[in-house]
């Protein structure tokens, strides 16, 4: 998936669907589009933290 990076091509941030005859390599090299990620961001790992505090008591 390509993402528009320049207003000369369309709305910045919008998905870009190339039409026939468009030189994609030149658009990427010129900084007009970028390759967007099609996968969702990975969830952060769950970590358990021990909130109990041990206190030493003197008898």
């Amino acid at each position, binding site marked *: 998936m390509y993402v528009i990076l320049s207003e000369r091509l369309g709305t910045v941030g919008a998905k870009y669907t190339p039409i026939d005859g468009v030189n994609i390599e*030149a658009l990427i*090299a010129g900084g007009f589009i970028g390759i967007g990620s099609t996968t969702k961001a990975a969830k952060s790992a769950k970590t358990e933290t021990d909130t109990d505090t041990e206190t030493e008591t003197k008898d």
Partner: protein
Amino acid sequence: MATSTILSNPHVLINAVNMSDQCTAANFSIDYTQLTASSFGDVDNKYVKGLGDHSLTLSFYGSFAATETWATLNGLVGTTFTVIVSPEAPATPGTYSATNPGMTLTGTFLASLPVNFQLGELNTMDIVCTGGVYTLDVS
């Protein structure tokens, strides 16, 4: 004698990139080779249409800033791409009409990118796109 002034404001898309604000001249030439079809007995030359040999000459101000003229054209030298020139910008991008047709060369070739520097003047880049399939988008 000219009695009115017509401001020309065509819309130029090179490889889908809108370069109208850097373009100062566009000459779209639709040409076909003329093949002789005369034969014995004819007293006048006759011709039929041969291969299309179209070209588009464009003049730009030579901006080297990001996503400007140099960034647009440099990567196209020696490759084929699509150019569209219309009399004015379409109200909806990509939608042309009979009164604002999109003159299109698909698969046109850019052989060179001359960069012109002249003392006291803005630098320019003049290109000639040759070949490609010509269509007139009026839809």
